[in-house]
């Protein structure tokens, strides 16, 4: 009975992590265009792991050959630490693919509701179409 209760709690907790946005710092929709999806591949410049949003700085080469830096915002570090994340989750030189909703302001390079996949195919963050990774 005890095990069953724990299992229910665990399943509920995982489900909540998957379906719920995890930050109340500010509303996301004014910042990101939820009607659009983008996918990029880039090299990690640095990963600033802190509150209220950790940020992954990704160097990306655009189709026209220009190199730009994308900023990918995550849920609060205090939430991610409960999942075992550390400041070494991403290190400079890592190659990752990111999919999500692009930032609204023209000329900026941001993304929300992320799914991030490493070069070996493992999902580093998100999954399920990005619904798990809303900031």
């Amino acid at each position, binding site marked *: 009975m005890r095990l069953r209760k724990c299992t229910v709690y665990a399943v*509920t*907790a995982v489900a*909540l992590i998957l379906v*719920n*946005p*995890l*930050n*109340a*710092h*500010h*509303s*996301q*929709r*004014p*910042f*990101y265009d*939820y009607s659009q999806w983008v996918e990029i591949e880039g090299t990690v410049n640095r990963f*600033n792991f*802190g*509150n*209220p*949003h*950790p*940020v992954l700085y990704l160097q990306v080469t655009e189709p026209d050959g220009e190199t730009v830096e994308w*900023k990918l*915002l995550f849920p*609060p570090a*205090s939430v991610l*630490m*409960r999942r075992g994340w550390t400041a070494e989750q991403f290190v400079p030189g890592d190659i990752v693919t990111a999919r999500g909703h692009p*930032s*609204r*302001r023209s000329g*900026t390079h*941001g993304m929300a509701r992320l799914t991030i996949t490493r070069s070996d195919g493992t999902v580093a963050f998100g999954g399920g179409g990005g619904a798990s990774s*809303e900031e």
Partner: protein
Amino acid sequence: MIKISRSSRIAAAAFLLFLATPYADSTLKAQSRATAAETPDIDGIWFRSDGGCTPDGVTCPFVVAELPLKARTLGFREAFDEPLAPKYDCVPSVVPSLVADPYKFQIEQLADRVVITYEKDDVIRTVWMEGHGNPQPKVGDFYQQGHSRGWYEENQLVVETTKFTFDPVGLDDMSNLPSSTSKKVTERYWRDGELMTVEVTTVDPLFLNAPIQFTWSFESSDEPLYLPYGCDPELSKEALEFLPPKYEDPDLVRITVSPYGEQPRD
């Protein structure tokens, strides 16, 4: 050496007792007000399993259109630009919004005070319990988190907070609703089986036509708080560049409010 007669000593002692009597009386009254049977056991760490307020195109905990807002409140919100919100400088949110944040918090019930520690923004609130001679704010004393006094009644912890500073997002930091120094927030905490329920009522005659209220329940947690939160102002501001500007020329706002009386450009 000065000699004091026995009768003078007795008179002095009687005078001191006379002075102390009102304090002793109020202390006894306050203590009798909170008998053990009336004190809920809410000591521990609490969280909302549904995540609490989370921004996904809806406002929370309030639906702005349903709030009894004064015209000046709507005008303020209309003019307010998101980057001006104090949270982007890591200024913590305040009640009532603080209660609705999707982070854990800890309640410690001590004899003369209740301490509430929030994981979000490292906020620590001290609720000064009545009847213990705790400090009282003076006229002109205002605090970002206000001054909280508390008491127990009918198995509830009642927390009344006043003396807030003006806060541009002090009524609701998700919807950018302001609060004044007249804001009063009353929180009532009680146990409901395994749950703890909180009823939060806010009045602010400067910005509200009537009280606003929400009631939420929380579950207890065995996990510790992850502290310090250590809000990083650099990280806090990173998303602002993604937001389309509200005003055509953001510099216009700065010039308009210049203390030198400059006029906006044509």
